[in-house]
């Protein structure tokens, strides 16, 4: 129990610290790397909770795909971050005020929250594995949400194709059927070109 608590605190402290570094870092590449560190530690907390499926999905999807994509974008697009930060000081007072109000409100929200220290350490009560337990409800109770998410992904796919594909009518495409069916007698012509005249 002590070891679990110890690891929980280690993971949480690193998560929070690296999250702060993401927004404080001057170099955007460092920010993305800290974001990856943040994801890894969040995955660690999921593991302590016994949610190994969520932990691995977090690592595979967020670290493996999303964060690496971020890294690519940051490195390939030459965004001038010093210019983006130019208005920072001008917006600081109003931004700071909104942030402060939100913070006070969140503290008030936390004040009404009854803390329960007897939280279950393992959320799953039965003997099923994580993946199987998720599968059991995703395809039965929550089939509606699952299918709706599928439709949203379909829209994303159609959208990406509509906005990027460019069918040029003038482009010459290979037509294998026409190539095979051609008769050499019709396609090749022998012309006796007289010198100095051209075809």
């Amino acid at each position: 129990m002590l070891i679990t608590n110890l690891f929980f605190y280690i993971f949480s402290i690193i998560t929070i610290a690296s999250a702060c570094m993401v927004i404080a870092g001057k170099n955007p590449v460092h920010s993305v790397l800290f974001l990856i560190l943040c994801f890894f530690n969040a995955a660690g907390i999921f593991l302590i909770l016994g949610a190994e499926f969520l932990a691995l999905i977090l690592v595979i999807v967020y670290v493996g795909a999303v964060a690496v994509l971020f890294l690519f974008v940051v490195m390939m697009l030459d965004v001038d971050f010093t210019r983006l930060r130019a208005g920072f000081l001008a917006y600081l007072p109003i931004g700071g005020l909104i942030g402060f109000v939100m913070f006070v409100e969140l503290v008030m929200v936390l004040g009404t929250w009854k803390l329960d220290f007897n939280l279950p350490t393992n959320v799953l009560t039965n003997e099923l594995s994580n993946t199987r337990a998720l599968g059991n409800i995703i395809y039965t109770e929550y089939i509606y949400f699952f299918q709706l998410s599928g439709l949203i992904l379909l829209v994303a796919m159609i959208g990406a194709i509509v906005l990027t594909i460019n069918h040029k009518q003038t482009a010459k495409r290979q037509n294998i059927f026409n190539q095979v069916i051609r008769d050499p007698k019709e396609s090749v012509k022998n012309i006796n070109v007289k010198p100095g005249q051209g075809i």
Partner: protein
Amino acid sequence: MTGLFYLPALPELFIALGAMVLLMVGVFKKERSYETVSFLSVLLLTSVLVIINLDYIPLGYAFNFSFLSDDFSNYTKSLILLASIGIIIISSGYLKSIGIVKFEYPVLILLSVVGMMVMVSSNDIVSLYLGLELQSLPLYVLASIRRESKKSTEAGLKYFVLGALSSCMLLYGLSLIYGFSGSIIYSDIANFLSENNSNKGILFGLAFLTAGLAFKISVVPFHMWAPDVYEGSPTTITAFLASAPKVAAVTLFTKVMVSCFPSLIDQWQLMIIFISIASMLLGSFAAIGQNNIKRLLAYSSIGHMGFILIGLATGTLSGVTGLLIYLTIYIFMVVGTFSCVLALRTNDVNIENISDLSGLSKVNPVIAFILSMFLFSLAGIPPLAGFFAKFYIFLSAIESGLYTLAIIGVLASVVGAFYYLRIIKIIYFDENINIFEPISKRMKLIIYVTAIPVILFFIRPSLLTDLAEKAALSLF
């Protein structure tokens, strides 16, 4: 097992499957794929509209209580379907003229309609969010579908980024509501709230939820995206953005507030009153200086959303009835006005500026008359339908004692009448005469179909008010 039953969701399933089939049709049909797909999608939407209104589909819960279809949702679904059918029909001529004949266009509209119908019949906060995303994602694509136009791309990008921001706020609010109430289903949250009335976490979540939804219907102070996006998008998409998604989002707003947070009415009523007053004032004052018709109609729609929210602010049966009546008339007016604007072309270009309308009364008196009727109706001048829409809303506000709201509303509509009348003055009295091209039969059909109810509404208002009242009753 009643909750797992899926029959009430048949219309949504039908459109979703139809959209996928039409996608295949479009891919495999080489010639005239746009015409075929757009014809079939109009057919699909019309048949669903008929099925919904013939009471063949059982009402009730579906999918483990995530889905609820009742008179209220069926009424607004019919509105959404009507608006989408109109938009698909008026699109084809315009799309050809700007060189976008893509069969994906009607398919994306269909998928967006599925999202709207999911929103309207949502019964928990997860389907609320998924419906909202499914509704907006096709709209982002459609707004930027004119790839070679800088303005269209900018509109799409702006809409996408701000839409994503509003989704973040919405999700944050929803997570707080779920975390503190312990349930995602509306009625369970309402039960929890009736016992713990002053739960600060849920109040905090409610504020974020309101902000997210206000973003989607573009009301002040979350309206900044609307004029730019409306101006940059292809005009048919602007018409779509101003009609069907607004119906869906307003309905969702009403449903969440009335069925999920009835015991917090003191809290959300204040927010809605503020939003409503601010939008009515901005809608009437900011539109005065506009010269672009699409921008003007964007501000006009912000103002109309303000009027509609008066109905929600009352939180009573007569308020919601007024809201539904207003939404219905608003849909007819908006689709009709946009069809008129789309139908008018000079020198092979669609008109964009208000001054282009001058001389219309001499070239095409019929369309000039109908367009002025639409504008008079938008301004709320009796005996046109727009007057009755405002009348029922103000009546409900006075019944619930919200006098300030009603008075500011009346004043705002007086100011708003100015810019509608300015357009009518240009149509009838300006000297400069433009040569307008003849109008296609399709456009005429939609213009007449939308104009008749708007002009002749005063003969039998009970035709609509009875339906709206029956629909609103099922919410209480």
